[in-house]
């Protein structure tokens, strides 16, 4: 009976309600044969995912390759997010795993698996006053350079927070890192970026 109601509501659902559907509902509809649902889902996440991959890999070609593989993998898998995972977490998890696979496949050093002393970074970042409001550079090359200057773990957390809109617990789950570590990585990343991009001090 409930399935019948769902079918009827879907049959007469206006396009606006489709736009307002959750990611999980859209994916489920796509799996049932609704191609429009995928287009909406893709439009929602294409930009964020691409910017995340571009920032993390640092190379346009690699970002495009992993981006394409991620979406095609999702299309072909036919599965749904498992357990408490949201579609967003699931999508970025796939992309992250693809990028790590690529690094492993090409014998590239895997920076995400580096372990570094969080305290060392914390001490280094104390140089800037954290409560000082700075004017940050808008130069794209400088922005990119500052981003790439971050340790990869910090950069990953920063990019996920900036472009995926995942909250910190979700990022902790995705990166399989303790929540407190995620918080400190994000804090250090922001402090360092402010310091690197600062142009003048506002009083």
């Amino acid at each position, binding site marked *: 009976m409930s399935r019948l109601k769902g079918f009827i509501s879907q049959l007469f659902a206006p396009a606006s309600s489709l736009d307002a559907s959750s990611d999980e509902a859209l994916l489920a509809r*796509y799996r049932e044969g609704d191609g429009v649902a995928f287009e909406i889902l893709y439009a929602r996440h*294409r930009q964020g995912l691409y910017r995340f991959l571009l920032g993390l890999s640092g190379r346009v070609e690699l970002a*495009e390759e992993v981006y394409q593989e991620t*979406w095609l993998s999702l*299309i072909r898998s036919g599965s749904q997010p498992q357990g408490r995972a949201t579609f967003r977490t699931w999508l970025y998890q796939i992309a992250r795993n693809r990028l790590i696979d690529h690094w492993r496949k090409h014998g590239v050093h895997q920076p995400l698996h580096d372990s570094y002393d969080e305290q060392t970074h914390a001490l280094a970042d104390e140089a800037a006053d954290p*409560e000082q409001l700075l004017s940050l550079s808008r130069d794209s090359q400088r*922005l990119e350079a500052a981003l790439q200057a971050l340790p990869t773990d910090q950069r990953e957390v920063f990019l996920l927070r900036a472009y995926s809109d995942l909250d910190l617990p979700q990022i902790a789950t995705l990166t399989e890192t303790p929540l407190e570590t995620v918080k400190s990585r994000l804090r250090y990343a922001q402090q360092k970026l*402010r310091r690197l991009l600062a142009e003048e001090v506002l009083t």
Partner: protein
Amino acid sequence: MTDARHTTDHQALDHYREQATGEPPAHLDALILAAARSATPAPKPGLWQRWIRACQQPRWQVAFASLVGIGLMLSLVQRTPEQVPGYDFAPAPKASAPVARQETEAAPPALARSLKAPAGAFSAPAPAAPMAESGAPAQAESFSADRADEAKVSKRAAVPVKSLDEQLREVLRLQKAGHKQAAEKLLADLHARFPDENLSARLEDLQKN
């Protein structure tokens, strides 16, 4: 203080969000959307569509046809009228009409209906009483099939019907008890009911006995 800290903490985040310009190239969008369209699974058929498809398959056609046949047979069997019972109603005519009518008037409507039914079914009720009295079984062949059910019900609800002699004894009892009017009325009823009978002679016989 806290707001200022929060603002500075998120300054870099907000700044990167505002300045971000990276977009996936158009050819990648087209490729991915095309792949999604080609991989879109066919919509699952509805219940009716699946049923119609099943009906189109030969083995299911045979199965459905068999089911329909069985259903038709069952409906025909269910609609067949019951067999008319042979002599189930034979004792019923023993009732003498006036007494039966009296009892009918006193009885509840359902019972009255059941009592009236057999009497009305006979074309000649009066001669039937002597026949019943003499022990001859009443013939029920004249019952039509559509009255069989009603007669069955009346048979279940039937009360013992008095014979002519018993009613004549009742007349005598009423006379002895001083209820002359009632006795005369009952006798008149009996005369009307059994015009061929010599009721006076039978009454005298009964008095003698």
